[in-house]
């Protein structure tokens, strides 16, 4: 029960209490005003909607108060001073308490990401099981009709989508927080307290999103388009929107922190074009997070206000415009996919030279292509709306801008394979995941242009083809690189080595299973399968493909179970890791495993290029004193 003595346990208890208190307050106000407090149906009715929203806000604040992440700020506010550094107590509890160490925050992001990923994965397996047969008949429990099954199906796909996005944002936070200070030779992030806040705000946010499951669900997909999402019949939309709104704070505050850290805190001699390639990717990611996230927060807030206060932003009957929502929503949500993939592409660029023993081909072009993707990404959002009924002449310019994304992305692919060419390639687990990432991201990338071209998209839009396409970009751009990163930096995080055989089994199940799943998804879409349907027409003759997709989905789940088993046994009794098991030139591998508490006890200076493998006698960094010579 010592979990409840940690900040996490305390915060969750505070959140529940705060939520109930907030609801009670609104109930009291409504009672005082003579408004109905409980309608027929009790707590899950439109009359209780305001209570749930206010309760959600109070609960979130109570969570933050309960954890103590606001304590230093509150003290400053009252004119009190606090120590510059808070030392963490040793032991597992530090991962569940507020810490300002970027490495611990990175790991907190990491395990939270994996937990949310597992939950969203269970939702996926649930609705994938229903799709084994054309009719809505498998998720049948006593008393529910096929219509109820379809409703539940809609909730499952919606929450699967949004929770996966939350999991990916958390995973991105894990990689960036853990790695950026290490790679640039900083002791920590520029704003450690803001960094802790950016992590902790995710937890109540994720809890709120999951709460939607018990408030009638959400049936508009993760995109939550009004007027469907502004229909008061589903209370779940409120906590869904509010939870995502809270998670958005994490991106915005995390983004500015990363930008400042990278621009101001690099080691001596590390000019921008001598930064590790992952840092470039993190910078591009942070720029998007810091400038675009506001738009999804805004679009969701407007729907919340439409529901709560009758402000008819998107109600066409009252002069509002439902297509406006889609513009606001996609102005974030398209760049957001580059938030999801750019760190992963950075990991690919970081690991390829190490396992090919050869410099990263065209470093400057690869670095600038990340920035290029991020910038072009701001001008393509309306390609999600070719069928939406927006002004039709807008479709052609957005087609041109969308296809331009292929150019910097192509530069990355060509440079990666040129890095492999005439290298000396070895195939440890991290490298296997990098290879998997490249080919799967390739699959996702090349299936993009038919969606970006208006006339073919008019057929492909909202079909399963699109589902296959973006799952390939997410697995290639995020999931496989994340696993590559976890295996590669595992020694630095834990001081232990993982089991190489289990790592390879993980890869050899997940990789073919993913191909099977993704390609089958694309095929069903081409053959006429619509997205987001719990019952499909028998006449399409696609049941065999659906069975394949579901079986592959379960295989992917199995491979993740193997990964978790591997992680657990490595933590318990894995052999002690060497300081530099991969013979990397990167600075974090020139010091002890696990990483020392304050990163580099002796500051380093950059004296060479980051990836000059094969250049005899060169090294990337040199420590200030003579204690630890930089190895090659």
């Amino acid at each position, binding site marked *: 029960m010592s979990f409840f003595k940690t900040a996490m346990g305390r915060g969750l208890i505070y959140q529940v209490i705060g939520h109930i208190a907030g609801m009670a307050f609104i109930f009291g106000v409504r009672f005082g005003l003579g408004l109905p407090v409980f309608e027929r149906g009790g707590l899950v009715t439109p009359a209780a909607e305001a209570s749930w929203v206010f309760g959600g806000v109070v609960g979130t604040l109570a969570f933050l108060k309960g954890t103590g992440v606001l304590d230093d700020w509150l003290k400053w506010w009252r004119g009190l001073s606090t120590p510059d550094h808070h030392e963490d107590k040793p032991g597992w509890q530090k991962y569940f308490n507020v810490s300002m160490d970027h490495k611990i925050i990175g790991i907190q992001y990491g395990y939270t990401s994996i937990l949310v990923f597992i939950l969203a994965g269970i939702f996926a397996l649930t609705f994938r099981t229903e799709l084994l047969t054309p009719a809505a008949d498998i998720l049948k429990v006593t008393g529910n009709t096929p219509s109820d099954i379809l409703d539940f199906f809609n909730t499952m796909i919606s929450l699967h989508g949004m929770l996966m996005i939350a999991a990916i944002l958390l995973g991105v936070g894990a990689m960036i927080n853990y790695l950026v200070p290490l790679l640039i030779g900083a002791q920590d992030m520029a704003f450690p307290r803001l960094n802790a806040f950016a992590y902790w705000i995710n937890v109540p946010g994720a809890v709120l999103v999951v709460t939607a499951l018990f408030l009638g669900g959400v049936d*508009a997909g993760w995109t939550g388009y009004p007027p469907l999402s502004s*229909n008061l019949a589903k209370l779940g939309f409120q906590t869904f929107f509010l939870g995502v709104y809270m998670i958005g704070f994490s991106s915005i505050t995390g983004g500015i922190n990363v930008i400042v850290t990278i621009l101001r805190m690099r080691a001596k001699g590390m000019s921008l074009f001598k930064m590790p390639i992952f840092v470039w990717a993190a910078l591009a990611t942070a720029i998007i997070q810091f400038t675009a996230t506001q738009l999804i927060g805004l679009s969701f807030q407007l729907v919340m206000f439409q529901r709560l206060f009758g402000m008819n932003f998107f109600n066409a009957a009252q002069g509002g415009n439902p297509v406006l929502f889609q513009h606001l929503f996609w102005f974030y949500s398209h760049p957001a996919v580059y938030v999801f993939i750019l760190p992963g592409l950075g990991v690919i660029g970081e690991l390829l030279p190490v396992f*090919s*023993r050869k410099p990263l081909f065209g470093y400057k072009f690869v670095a600038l292509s990340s920035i290029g993707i991020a910038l072009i990404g701001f001008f393509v959002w309306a390609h999600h709306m070719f069928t939406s009924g927006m002004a039709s002449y807008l479709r052609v310019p957005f087609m041109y801008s969308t296809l331009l994304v292929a*150019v910097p992305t192509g530069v990355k692919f060509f440079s990666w394979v040129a890095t492999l060419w005439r290298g000396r390639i070895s195939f440890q687990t991290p490298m296997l995941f990098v290879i998997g990432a490249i080919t799967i991201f390739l699959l996702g990338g090349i299936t993009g242009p038919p969606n970006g071209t208006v006339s073919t998209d008019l057929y492909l839009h909202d079909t399963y083809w699109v589902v296959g396409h973006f799952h390939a970009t997410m697995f290639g751009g995020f999931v496989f690189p994340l696993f590559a990163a976890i295996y590669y930096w595992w020694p630095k995080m834990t001081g232990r080595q993982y089991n190489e055989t289990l790592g390879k089994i993980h890869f050899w199940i997940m990789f073919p299973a993913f191909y099977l799943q993704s390609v089958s998804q694309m095929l069903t879409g081409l053959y*006429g399968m*619509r997205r987001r349907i719990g019952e499909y027409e028998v006449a399409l003759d696609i049941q065999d493909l659906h069975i394949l997709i579901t079986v592959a989905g379960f295989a992917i789940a199995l491979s993740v179970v193997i990964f978790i088993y591997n992680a657990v046994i490595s933590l318990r009794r894995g052999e002690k890791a060497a300081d530099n098991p991969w013979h990397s030139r990167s600075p974090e591998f020139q010091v002890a495993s696990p990483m020392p508490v304050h990163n580099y006890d002796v500051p380093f200076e950059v004296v060479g290029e980051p990836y000059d493998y094969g250049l005899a006698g060169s090294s990337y960094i040199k420590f200030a004193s003579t204690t630890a010579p930089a190895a090659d």
Partner: protein
Amino acid sequence: MKQIRHFLFTAIIVAVLTAGIGYWLQQVIARMPISAEASRQAVYIKSLLGQHFWAIAFLFALIVGVMVYSFIAFRQKKGELLDGDYIEGNTGLEILWTIVPLGVVIWFAFLGGQSLTFMEIQNDNPLRVNVTGRQWSWSFEYPEYGIITEELVLPEDSQTLLRLRSTDVIHSFWVPEFGPKQDLLPGGEVRELRVNPSESGEYTLACAELCGKQHALMLADVIVMPRGEFDAWVRAKIAENPCLDGDQVGCGEKLARDNGCLACHSVDGSQNVGPTWLGLFGREEALDDGTVVIADVEYIINSIREPAAQIVSGFQNVMPAAIGESLTDEDIEAIISYIETLQ
């Protein structure tokens, strides 16, 4: 010499992969609904998709081919730890693989714009059909003939101008064999889609934008027939309007169908979103506030005019208020006459 061999082998792998994947993708296209070429629009989409698929085959083969060859030719032998050749990059190559893809994507965007233009060519005097989508059914009005139907019947080889609107949430009109889709917006906004059906046959219209509980089942039959048959169908449809020749029950059935009532209320006793109409008239209904009412004329009028007022226990009020507002007293009378016959 060794370099040339590397490039030669790689080129062979890439060529074989391109041919194999490209061939397979053309087989995939052949199985797609647009390969029925049931409309002029489908033909343009199919042709452009074919070109995209060749580009996909080549790019996949190129990257994977180079990777696979590198894994074979440039792998670290067991136990070795050698460095690869020291090559930092090649600015000429980088510029080449920026400029060439730039040209290719601009070319594809041009092709996309061109094919869109062809798809949207406007013919003179198209057949106008007003399509209404609602949770969760479709209806089709032929303003020139004054008929409303539940299935979409179109003449072959002439253009149809579909004028789309929704009464509640966003829906999307999609007949896979025709090719394009277009969303339906609520609030009186009308969006247009032009199709030129070119192949007689039976197709299915499906809603392609998630629209709530029964989205998956929001389907309608589409029948394309030669012009002569179509004209005959129109004449028959005009002649059979029961509301014009005093058939109260038939008129009620038609109104119930045209206004989408039957999408949620079954007439065979099966359970659906709303209470079944089979045996409704005179039945005792338990409401969710605990009271019991008898479904008489007054109750039914009330339930249509104010759907939220009395909710039958076990159901939720999802009935669009717009239905009650658009029906006249005579319309409702006819619908009740129809319900009375369902015993």
